[in-house]
């Protein structure tokens, strides 16, 4: 591949003070975030938290009101073509030209990319059973999504940005897609940013998880470490508050609606339950509910 991958690469993505508003509503509010190179990072947030807005802003598809986005070391708002060719993007809503057939679409995109992998494209088209000669508009939602994934993988991007890529796939289709993603990661150390609300998929492939809430990244941490250091507490608020301070835990829950989740600050074991406070290991779902409330 190209030589620039061999020396130190800048952080794949760097966002500083990014703000985006729709009318009076501030969706991103001075958001700071760094994406490590070569990692699969899951972006988690509730519906309407701004995941798609964040993705569009970091790709330069939406102009922020304030702040800066650097993608592969270049400002997102003015990405040179050669940098754009190193990025793959699967948007939440299919943006394929509906009057073309899949074969015509792929032939069209192929002409833009020097690193187009035709063998992989042909393999995926057969394995994923995508009709080649029907207008794309006539394909099912799942097939369109698969085609969109093929298109994003075909030029072997260094950075792959996936906005709810599996929303219209059935469990078998999601499994195929995850397998393909795993292959990509092994072969090319692709950096993957993966937004989804299907936590079980994310758990399988994400090394890091980031929680978007209140217009900012509330927490970005390795998933394994987060699961091992977090506990779900049960009991009345006063008892829990005392327990948290006695064990010097870091409370993660943002308000009283979700489960009460706290994180140990050191490598000590799980604090023992008391007659008034129950302690259980936290799952990703607990963390999601607590952090994105």
């Amino acid at each position, binding site marked *: 591949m190209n030589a620039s991958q061999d020396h130190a690469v800048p952080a794949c993505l760097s966002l500083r003070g990014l703000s985006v508003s729709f009318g009076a509503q501030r969706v991103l509010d001075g958001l700071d975030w760094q994406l490590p190179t070569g990692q699969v990072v899951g972006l988690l947030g509730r519906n309407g938290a701004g995941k798609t807005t964040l993705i569009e802003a970091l790709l330069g598809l939406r102009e922020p009101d304030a702040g800066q986005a650097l993608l592969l070391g270049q400002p997102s708002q003015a990405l040179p073509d050669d940098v754009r060719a190193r990025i793959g993007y699967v948007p939440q809503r299919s943006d394929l030209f509906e009057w073309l057939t899949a074969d015509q679409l792929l032939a069209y995109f192929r002409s833009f990319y020097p690193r187009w992998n035709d063998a992989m494209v042909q393999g995926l088209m057969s394995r994923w059973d995508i009709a080649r000669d029907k207008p794309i508009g006539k394909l099912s939602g799942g097939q369109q999504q698969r085609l969109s994934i093929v298109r994003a993988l075909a030029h072997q991007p260094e950075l792959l940005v996936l906005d709810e890529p599996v929303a219209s796939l059935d469990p078998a289709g999601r499994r195929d897609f995850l*397998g393909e993603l*795993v292959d990509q990661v092994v072969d090319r150390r692709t950096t993957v940013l993966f937004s989804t609300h299907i936590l079980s998929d994310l758990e*399988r492939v994400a090394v890091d998880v980031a929680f978007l809430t209140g217009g900012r990244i509330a927490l970005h941490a390795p998933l394994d470490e987060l699961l091992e250091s977090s506990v779900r507490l049960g009991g009345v608020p006063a008892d829990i508050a005392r327990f948290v301070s006695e064990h010097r835990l870091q409370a993660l829950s943002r308000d009283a609606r979700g489960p009460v989740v706290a994180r140990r600050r050191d490598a000590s074991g799980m604090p023992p339950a008391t007659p008034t406070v129950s302690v259980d290991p936290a799952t990703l779902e607990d963390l999601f509910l607590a952090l994105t409330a």
Partner: protein
Amino acid sequence: MPDISLFSVVAGSAEPIYRQLVAQVRRCVAGGQLKAGDELPSVRDLAQSLAVNPMTVSKAFGLLEAEGLVTRRRGLAMVIAEQHRRAQPAADRVDLLRPTLERAAQEVRQLQLPSSQALALFKTILHEHEGE
């Protein structure tokens, strides 16, 4: 040939996937299903078949190596270490079950179930799987 079907992962668990894999190998070695010299699947094959990140599989294998349960053979394959020739005595194996049963016991107490009823259910479940 390494048997991939010995491995499975559950998403949605509080136990990270790499720990699930480590615990499965530990149990298979203790039970004698995996013995000295048996090969583990490659990181890539296992990651592919479970649809998990290869780094997660590597992490599990690294931990197993550090524990002395497996050794890295020249080339790529990980094999079960020399000292694990036969299954551990049942008295040791049963200890590995303790954490899971402790959790179950806690739930039995929370549900205020009599232990006879909980034990009867456990017996039924054990027999269900014997038939498979």
